[in-house]
Every structure is written in structure tokens, then in C-alpha cells.
């Protein structure tokens, strides 16, 4: 094995954005570190991965089977790494294998075997496997044509979810509340699925949605990178959900129950590399269902990498060429190996960025089809501060929890704005709470966990105090208002003195010495950024985790 072909993800579209430039660039670097020669094909010139310095040969050619075959014929690579170019790269690799092109040119698929990818992506095979290992999956039906769709119209419990197989970001999917809606959305989904295959399943609307990012090597070593919890309950695409990491509302029992399930699944599938497991958890019991598995590097894994400091794509590439987790160095600490599970001593909030400021006529309702073009992430020590930081960085008109549109709505209308998920629902929820609606009343409408709502109340309490000119500068900074926001909200009456320090994202919550200058700001006393300036970090950890 000398030469490896990497397939990129092509143009930025909704559901497939810059995360694959990040993953692809890391993968190329990682493989070249191991001494391989890398050939790359990607049609998108606006990427770092297509720089001539990134790979040994870079093809900016259309991402079609035909052009991939021409690249293979010309370069004669020994291996193909299919899991770093998003769904586009994975679909192309699958087609190249199925059409016998890989065999013809003697190209080995690296990393997760094709059979495992199919088991994860083909709904029927996946469900069979889950049944075999006794992991619960929601009752569902698979249809492959309109006749089959017609047959089940009277069997399915409503509301139900429609998911076409083999599409990007859930294209063509949706929720149906009636037979008619099921028929319409189902027909559309059949056309958009590369395999003409749909899964229709019981809706778990209102359940908590949780994801685990897991890694496995060829020897079967498995670790969890982190888990993430959606603020929005089931029913909204993860890419359109507000996400926190690590999970904030799971009990320890639930956390470990889901972790165990995720590791069991990645083992059963035989994944070699990174993988994402999505689960639904009943907020009122210990019931859970496995929703789906992404047998590849994804948007979630980019988020998890940045959230923890653990370079998932880089490590996945090394696993694909046969290295094991205990042999790969964690480049963040420089002292630990990739088999250490990251620890987080902060809270992450991700907010999606939607295009509805440009598409005023677009349908703003969120469901299982992703609509966001991008996202922001914020790191701080509390959920409140991270949320405020994320909103401030979103570059929309709203810079905090106020939104004129919802302030102007009558109660009844506001209730609907809270009930129906849209890109602006967070502000509607805040407005409900601002009007003194109880947490339970708001929860009944939106099904967002009480914990998140109480945290929003904390911010709103400060908002009110600032507006009435109370001297709460310190508390306001703590929940994430910036000095100029405080000045603005209080009409110039409250002037904040920053007590800002920078903390390090080091994958290990300071348990080990770390050298990576990756920082976030928070209110506090001990600065970890200026310490590392010029002088090396203290050998003893700032505080240790037991």
C-alpha cells in the first residue's frame, strides 16, 4: 500500500458544508504523515484540501463515477478512503465498488468495510442487526415503490416520519399527520432516494434527541469522543437543532446506558474509524430507541472535534490504514494517546444559521429535512453564557433573547410560534417565558426540556434587571452579555468591568499537560492563555480530575 485515493465532498450544499474540507484536509495530512502518497479528487476549488500542497496529486474534476474511474485508471492507487468525503464521497465509493471498478484496478477500500457501511445505511439491514443485538428501534415499514406505499397507508400510526435512504441531509423526508400527507411526501421521497427506498416509522416527537460520537479500530478498541444533546426534541433534523455538548439533562444512568448502546452498535457493525449514533430518549422513563448511524465522518464529528479538541478525521484516517487507537498520539496534549476519551470542563452550544433572511418566501418550518447553511459554536463555562455567545456570533439581527416579531404577537399567536419548530423558535420560547408563562406551560407547547427553559429564565431575569438599570454588571457578564450589550440594554446606566480570562480546550480537562493554544473566553480569575505565552505551562495541572 503506497498510494491512496481520497474522494472529497464537492460543492457546498445544505447538508454538506465546510466540515468536509476540514475532514479531508486533516485526512490528507494524516495519511502523508504515515508516508503514503495521496491522490485527491474534488470539484470544489474553494477548499484548502484542493490546494496543491495538500495532496500529491489534486484533481479538480467532476465528482462522477466516470471521472473517478479516469482518475483511478491514470493514478492506479492501491487504496481508497471513502468515509471522509461526506455522503457524496461515500456514495461514489459504493458505486465504484458495485460497478466492479475497484476490483478491475485492484483498489482496496480502506477503513470501514463496504458491508458495514451497507448495514448502517440500508434501513432493513440495520434494523435486522439491531434486533439481533437487542437494541431497540422504533416500529417501521420499508417501501420501495408506490404500490407498497399505498398498502401501508392504513397501518401506520400518525404522526409518522418519512426518511428516504441514501440522500443528503434527509432530502425529501418529512413528517406526515394524515394518510394524504404520507402519500404525497412518500412519493416525493421515493424519487429522491438513490435506491428508491423509504423508511416510514412511528414518530418519536417530543423525545430527547442525543448523539454519541464513537471511534473503533480494527482490533475492536472503542471509545466515545463525546455526546451531544439537542435542545430541540425529536422531529427536527440535527443539523437544524440547537445542540449542546456534553449532554446536560441526562442522568448518569441514562448517559451510560446510551454510551453502552453506542459502543455495542459500533462493534456489531464493525466500523473502523469514526461513527455517529443518534438516539431518542423518553424524557419520562428509561426507554430509548436507536434512530440511525452515520458510518463516516460527518457534520456532527466536526462539531465534536472542535468541541473536545479531539481530531476525529485525523485519527479515522490513521485507523483506516491499520493503526490502532493506542498507537496514535493525541496531537493536542502531545503526551496522551488517541485511546483516551476526552473530558470537557465547559459547555458547548451550537446554533444553526439559516438562509431565511435571503429567502423571505421560504418555508421556515423545521422538520426532518435540513435547511441550515451553516452553524456557529460557542464555548463557555455555563449553558447561559455559551448560548448568549452563540447568539451574538450568529450575525442575525437579534443579539440576545429579544425578538421584536414575537414581542408583538398576541398570546395565542405566540403559543403557536412556540409549538411549531422554526428557525426563530428559541426567541418565541424566550418571549413566552418573559411574559411569565410557567416553565411547564412552555414545555407543554415545545417539549424542550425544563432544564434548558430554566436556564433561559436565568438570562431573562438579568435582562429585566438591566433594563431597569439595576447594577448587575457582574451577573450579566456571567450569563454571557458583552460589555456593550450591557450598556445598550441598561440604557447606559450599567457599565461592566470585564473579568475575562481565556481557558484552554485541551481534551482532558487539564488532567494532563497540554500544548495546544486553543482558547475560549469566560469570566473568571485564572488565565490559561497568557500563561502559555513565552513560558511553558506549569508541569502540574491547574486542577485535577479524579
Amino acid at each position, binding site marked *: 500500500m503506497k498510494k491512496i485515493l481520497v474522494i472529497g465532498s464537492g460543492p457546498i450544499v445544505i447538508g454538506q458544508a465546510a466540515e468536509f474540507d476540514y475532514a479531508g484536509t486533516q485526512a490528507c495530512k494524516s495519511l502523508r504523515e504515515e508516508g503514503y502518497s495521496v491522490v485527491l479528487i474534488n470539484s470544489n476549488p474553494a477548499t484548502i484540501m484542493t490546494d496543491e500542497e495538500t495532496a500529491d496529486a489534486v484533481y479538480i474534476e467532476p465528482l462522477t463515477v466516470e471521472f473517478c474511474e479516469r482518475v483511478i485508471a491514470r493514478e492506479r492507487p492501491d487504496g481508497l478512503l471513502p468515509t471522509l468525503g461526506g455522503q457524496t464521497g461515500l456514495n461514489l465509493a459504493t458505486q465504484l465498488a458495485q460497478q466492479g471498478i475497484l476490483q478491475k484496478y485492484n483498489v482496496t477500500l480502506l477503513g470501514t468495510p463496504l458491508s458495514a457501511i451497507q448495514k448502517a445505511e440500508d434501513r432493513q439491514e440495520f434494523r435486522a442487526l439491531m434486533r439481533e443485538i437487542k437494541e431497540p428501534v422504533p416500529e417501521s415499514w420499508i417501501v420501495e415503490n408506490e404500490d407498497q406505499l399505498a398498502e401501508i397507508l392504513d397501518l401506520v400510526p400518525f404522526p409518522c416520519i418519512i426518511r428516504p435512504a441514501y440522500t443528503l441531509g434527509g432530502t425529501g423526508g418529512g413528517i406526515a399527520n394524515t394518510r394524504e400527507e404520507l402519500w404525497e411526501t412518500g412519493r416525493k421521497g421515493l424519487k429522491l432516494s438513490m435506491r428508491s427506498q423509504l423508511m416510514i416509522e412511528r414518530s418519536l416527537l417530543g423525545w430527547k434527541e442525543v448523539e454519541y460520537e464513537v471511534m473503533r479500530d480494527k482490533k475492536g478498541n472503542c471509545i466515545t469522543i463525546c455526546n451531544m444533546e439537542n435542545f430541540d426534541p425529536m422531529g427536527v433534523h440535527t443539523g437544524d437543532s440547537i445542540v449542546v455538548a456534553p449532554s446536560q439533562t441526562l442522568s448518569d444512568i441514562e448517559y451510560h446506558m446510551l454510551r453502552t448502546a453506542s459502543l455495542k452498535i459500533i462493534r456489531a457493525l464493525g466500523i473502523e474509524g469514526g461513527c455517529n449514533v443518534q438516539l431518542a430518549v423518553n424524557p419520562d422513563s428509561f426507554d430509548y430507541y436507536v434512530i440511525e448511524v452515520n458510518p463516516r465522518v460527518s457534520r456532527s464529528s466536526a462539531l465534536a472535534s472542535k468541541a473536545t479538541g479531539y481530531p476525529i478525521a485525523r485519527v479515522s484516517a490513521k485507523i483506516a490504514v491499520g493503526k490502532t487507537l493506542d498507537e496514535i498520539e493525541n496531537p493536542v496534549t502531545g503526551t496522551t494517546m488517541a485511546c483516551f476519551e476526552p473530558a470537557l470542563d465547559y459547555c458547548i452550544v451550537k446554533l444553526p444559521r439559516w438562509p431565511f433572511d435571503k429567502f423571505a418566501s421560504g418555508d421556515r418550518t423545521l422538520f426532518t429535512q435540513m435547511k441550515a447553511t451553516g452553524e456557529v459554536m460557542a464555548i463557555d463555562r455555563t449553558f447561559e453564557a455559551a448560548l448568549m*455567545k452563540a447568539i451574538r456570533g450568529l450575525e442575525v439581527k437579534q443579539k440576545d433573547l429579544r425578538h421584536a416579531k414575537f414581542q408583538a404577537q398576541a398570546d395565542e399567536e405566540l403559543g403557536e410560534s412556540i409549538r411549531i419548530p422554526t428557525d426563530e423558535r428559541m426567541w418565541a420560547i424566550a418571549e413566552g417565558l418573559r411574559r411569565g408563562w410557567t416553565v411547564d406551560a412552555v414545555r407543554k407547547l415545545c417539549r424542550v426540556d425544563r432544564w434548558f427553559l430554566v436556564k433561559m429564565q436565568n438570562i431573562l431575569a438579568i435582562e429585566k434587571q438591566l433594563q431597569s438599570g439595576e447594577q448587575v454588571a457582574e451577573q450579566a457578564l456571567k450569563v454571557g452579555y458583552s460589555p456593550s450589550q450591557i450598556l445598550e440594554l441598561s440604557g447606559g446606566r450599567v457599565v461592566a468591568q470585564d473579568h475575562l480570562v481565556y481557558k484552554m480546550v485541551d481534551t482532558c480537562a487539564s488532567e494532563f499537560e497540554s500544548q495546544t493554544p486553543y482558547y475560549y473566553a469566560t469570566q473568571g480569575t485564572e488565565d490559561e492563555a497568557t500563561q502559555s505565552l513565552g513560558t511553558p505551562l506549569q508541569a502540574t495541572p491547574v486542577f485535577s480530575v479524579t
Partner: protein
Amino acid sequence: MSDSILVLGSGPIRIGQGIEFDYSCVHCVWALEKLGYRALIINNNPETVSTDFDTGDGLYFEPVTHDDVLRVVRSEGCLGVVTQFGGQTAINLAAPLAASGVKVLGTQPEAIAMAEDREQFDELLTSLGIPKPAGRAVRSLAEAKGVAREVGYPVLVRPSFVLGGRAMEIVYSEEQLGGFYAEAEDANPGQPVLVDQYLLGQEAEVDVISDGVDALVPGIMEHIERAGVHSGDSMAVFPPVNLSVAVQELMVDYACRIARALGVKGLMNIQFIIQGEKVFVLEVNPRASRTVPFLSKITGVKMVQVATNCMMGQSLASQGYKSGLWNVSTQDIGTPTLEKAPFYAVKAPVFSFQKLAKVEPSLGPEMKSTGEIMGIDFEYEAALYKALIASGIHFKPGGYVILTVTKDDKDKTVGIARKLLAAGYKLAATPGTHTRLKEEGIESHLVMKIQEGSPSLLELIFNGEASLMINTPTVGEQSTKEAKQMRRACIESGVVCITSIDTAEAVAQALHLFARPELSNCMPYTEYLKQRGSLR
């Protein structure tokens, strides 16, 4: 004195501000490191290479706002900040940061204001004797009406200081003006609205690197769609195939003079409209544009690196460059030419309409694409073909091509229809287009628009017989309900829908390659350049 420099990122990916800006930020960081500086990044987008902690000497994962940037600058004691690579997000912070006492590196806030503030910009162009479409910045609807009457309809109405053509509209009558004026005002409250004469012509753009005195133009990109389609949604070709030598020389001359007058240190982008041999400057963006990665790859000029060096005080001359247009064949400054280029590179936009129910998919002055791809080959048609298929305009020979075009586009449609027939496609056309084709002796299957009855073109779309629809919107009525319904039907059925006659002509021009793709090449992009001895 610290040697730390903070590079401002571009925040979340959105339409109008995509991955291109992350590319430029990353290259700026690397260039600064090469110069021996400690290069820091502030950005909050978790998807990107710029927020890989391996990229710079330090990563601050924080929002790109005035307060958050200022806090990092103070904590690190930074030498200065770089605002020209992170799109509109970063450049908009230049003036407020300077006001807070932060040193902005490269092009100064005063120069940025001169390019972005319409009144100052008009004065600048007038003093340089460089033509622009008639019009100006206004602050009320009454004033807008006055300008429109003065320059004549149609007029282009848009907000100032906004990227991606947001709320930009072509307005054909005074009745329409009120609504669009309000939208433009709302898009950036407190800032004036720009009202300009709308010139229908060829569009082109250049990126310029300047050290404040000399100005290097790495390449001219010619847009395939005429004015009225946002530059981010246009296909574009490098080097130009239709612009005369005189026109190219004028563009380079204007670019060099504007760069010098502004004192640009770093990158700048200029958009032009060409009518005959006359060149008008449409707008100047005093920052790295979305075409920087594309041009950097195909011209052999490492644009961000050269620009960063200029920003940090090196002259172009000291880097081996001088004023003028770069020639890819000789890898030196040269005069424009219309000779066959060593290779052609075509950029094409990619849209996400399938994910966005109810969104109008026709092209207009407001940007709608989410991404882009490139096709490169030795022949223009082959590069065009690759750009088309890579952007998803991929249709098999055989099926119907539905033609339903506006009156102004019927002439061009005749030529396109002939090429389609010759390539073995079947034609279907709505009554007006059908009649016109018949006059030219071209047979087509008559189909009706939705409200006109059966057989409706929707049937062809839904039953899978249509492989392509060419539908150009009626002038001034971009979003009639019926037209939008037809286009949405295509999107939802996976049928390619082309809404600009210029894009359709490009497809027709590359049609023979759809049947014989082996006529195109497949090689590392550096080889297209090297085979003609163009890489240094």
C-alpha cells in the same frame, strides 16, 4: 512589542459568505507565519479549517464581534488585526475596531469607507474619470423616486454595506419601487439605499493585489450570464473569451488607478459592466472576494500570500511583481490577448433548492447559490461541460427539453433548439415559443403552461419524460405564481431547470461533450497549467 497578529474569520457559512473566505483566512495565517509573526485566529464556525487548532499559532473560538475581538487583542497585546479576508463580517469591524484604538493592518478604514460609502465612492470615480452607472445613495423613498426618474427605469435598488446582493432588486416601475425600497432599507437599517441605472450588458470582475502604489491583476473573469444575475450565481470563465483587448486594457487600467487612489494594501475586487467597448465600474469591494481561491489555483499567483506580504509592508516589486495584468502562459505581466488560452477554467454555482421548499429558483440580482465548483480543460467547451456536470446539470441524451422563454429570448432560443435537435433531444415548447420555432422550421411538441390546460408541461416533468427545462422569467415579473410553480415542479422532480438564456447557450455550446465525454481531459489541475509551462 508583541509580534502577534489576529486574523478575523468570517463566522457561520451563509449564502453570500461561504467557504471561500475561510480559505483566504487560512492562507493569510500561513503567510503571516512565514513572515515570522505569531498568527492568531478568531472565529466561531466549527466546520472550518480556520478553526482547526493546527492551523495557526493560536485559536480563539469566539464570536467575530467588536467586543469579543477587542478582548482578545487586549489580552494578547496584538500588533494589529487583519480584516480583509473574513468577508463582510470582518471588514465591517475595521472601522469600529480602529475607533477603539486597534491597529487595522493593510487597507485602512478610511479607504474601506471610500469604497463602501456611496457618496465618497462616486466622488472618487468622478475625480478619476472612470464611468459608472448613473445613480446615487438615497435616504428616503421620495429621493429614490427622484433618482429613478432622473436615470430612467429599470433601476437597480440595493442596500449598502451588505454582502451577497441581499434585498437587491431590478425595479421596472415606480409602483414597484415602494416595496423594494422598504426591503432594501430594512436589510441594513440606518444605512442609505443605492438606486442606480440598470445597465444590461456583459459582466466581468477582477481581483487586484496592491501595495498602495503598484497593482497586480492576477486575472479577469468573464461572467457567462449577463448583468442582472448576481456575480455569485453567475457562471464565469477565466481567461475571458468575448472581451476585446481594448476592454480588458480599460479594466486593468481602472483597477490599477482605483487601487492606487484608495491606497489598497492587500486585496480588492472590482465588478464591471461592459456595453460595447465601454466599461462601467459597478462596485469595488476593498477585501478578498469569493473568487480568490479559484483564481489563486489557476493563475499560479499565490494571491493571499502576496496580498498578506503587501499588507505587512512588502512592495509588489520586492516580490517580483509589477503593475498590470498577469499572463498565465508567460507567468509575467503582459498585455491582454484574444488568442486561444493555454487552458480555460469555468466556475459554476451550485444551489440547494431541493432542501428549501417554496423558494423561487430563478436567477436574479440576489444571490441564491450555496456553493461552487470548477471545470478546467484545454478547450473552453470541455471546461464548460465539466463545470456543468459538476454543478449537477447532468442529463442523459433522449428525453424532452421543455422550452418556455420570454419574448426577448426567443431569437437565442432558435439557435439553442437547433443544437438540441441535432444532439438527439426532443423538443417541447409552450405556445409562444412553439410558434416562433415553427416559423424557423423547427418542430416541437406543443405543451401548455399550467393554467392553459392539457397537455400541460407539468405532465412531462412528473412522468419522467423531461430531462431539462429552459424557462426564462418574464422581465419584471420574476415570481409570478405560475412560473414559480413550474420551476418548483422541476426542482421537486429532479429535472434540471435553467432560468437564464445565457446559461442555456452555454449548455448548447458544450452539448457535443455530453454525448462524447471522452473529448474532455482528466488530470491534476496543476498539469493543465504546467503543460503550457505556466507554473513557476
